[in-house]
Structure formats: structure tokens, C-alpha cells
């Protein structure tokens, strides 16, 4: 059972425009959410996170929105740049897991292509 889903496997956007990546989750215990960016043959790098007590977190060109009632989060990249072309993963964890509280469950990823 996939607890974290990214239903769009790919996204193509023009340079300078907004990229919107979506992620849905099913486990209501999740209360910490993250986005990672991954280039080929490299490990994922942390981009931005949000706690369930917030509905928005912004860091430069990246903004994450959380809709707890819909169990949905999104990542907005504005403006998109060619260097943003990568695979993006959303991830979630639950404090109720205790000592392994930041044991992350990942979505399947969305491949973003930013066209110059």
C-alpha cells in the first residue's frame, strides 16, 4: 500500500514559469513533510519541509503548501530554471514512530524538465 503518492510521473515547464508538483498521502499520522530533489546517479538533496502545524512554508523560489484535510501537499517553484530539471520526491514521517520519528516514506517521484 503506497502511503505517499505522486500521481504525475513527469512535468514539462518553460523557463521562467511556475512548476507545481503534487503529492497525496493516506496515513493521517504523518505530520512532517519534505521535498527532495535528485539528479541522475546522485543521492537526493533536501529542499524544503513543512510541519503539520503550518499550511505554507517558503524558501526562496520554493514554496510548499499543505492541505491536511485533503491529505495533499504541493511544491511550487517560481521562477523555474533549467537547473531545476531533476526528479522531485515528496516524503512524510510521523512523530508517533518515536525513536525512528524521521523514518521517511517517499513518493514515487516526478521528473521535471525545464525548457530554456
Amino acid at each position, binding site marked *: 500500500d503506497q502511503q505517499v503518492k505522486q500521481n504525475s510521473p513527469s512535468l514539462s515547464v518553460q523557463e521562467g514559469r511556475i512548476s507545481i508538483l503534487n503529492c497525496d498521502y493516506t496515513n493521517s499520522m504523518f505530520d512532517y513533510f519534505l521535498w527532495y530533489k535528485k539528479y541522475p546517479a546522485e543521492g537526493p538533496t533536501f529542499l524544503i519541509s513543512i*510541519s503539520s502545524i503550518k499550511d505554507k512554508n517558503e524558501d526562496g523560489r520554493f514554496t510548499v503548501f499543505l492541505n491536511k484535510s485533503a491529505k495533499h501537499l504541493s511544491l511550487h517553484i517560481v521562477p523555474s530554471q533549467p537547473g531545476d530539471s531533476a526528479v522531485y520526491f515528496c516524503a512524510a514521517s510521523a512523530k508517533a514512530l518515536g525513536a525512528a520519528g524521521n*523514518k521517511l516514506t517517499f513518493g514515487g517521484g516526478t521528473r521535471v524538465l525545464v525548457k530554456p
Partner: protein
Amino acid sequence: SQTIHQWPATLVQPVGSPLSLECTVEGTSNPNLYWYRQAAGRGLQLLFYSVGIGQISSEVPQNLSASRPQDRQFILSSKKLLLSDSGFYLCAWSPGGYNSPLHFGNGTRLTVT
């Protein structure tokens, strides 16, 4: 600053051969350590995690095992590789506690032939 090292970067092994992948973390103490696997075209699946020396938790039944002989060393092993063990293996660390992101190494591409 903290760094994570993972090697080798690529590995081609025949079916039935043993496996040992090593991961070390520098610049921190008592980190949480993790092994993830990314199968082709799939997301990241947690295989093992460790909150301390000698403490290993397995997430999925499989042909692999993990060990943590030292505080900042995490090893992924297999006695006999299967074709299905092919994939991209990632080691990660976090400072422990809650609401802290994981930081990943650059991964090992394992091909079992």
C-alpha cells in the same frame, strides 16, 4: 560540517556472490543511519535503519542485512545476491530526534548479472 561517504559508486556482481556496501558519516556523533533502495523508475524504499551501535531495524523481508559496528559506520550486506537485488542503494543520516531531514550519500548502483 557533516559529510556522508558511500562506496563504491558502481558495482557489478554475479548472482550468488556476496555483497558489502559501506557508509560512513563525519562531523557528527550518534546519528540515525538509514539504507534505502531505489529500483528502476520507482521511489525510495526504506530497507534498514539504526538509532545506535548494534541497533538495526529491518523494514522489509529480503535477502539483505545491515550492521552498525561503529557509531558512524553502516554496512549493507548479502551472503548471496539475487537478480532482484539490483538497484540504486542510498545511505542516509539524520541527527536523530524529530523534524530533521535525512541527508543522503551519492549512492551505489548495483547490477547483479
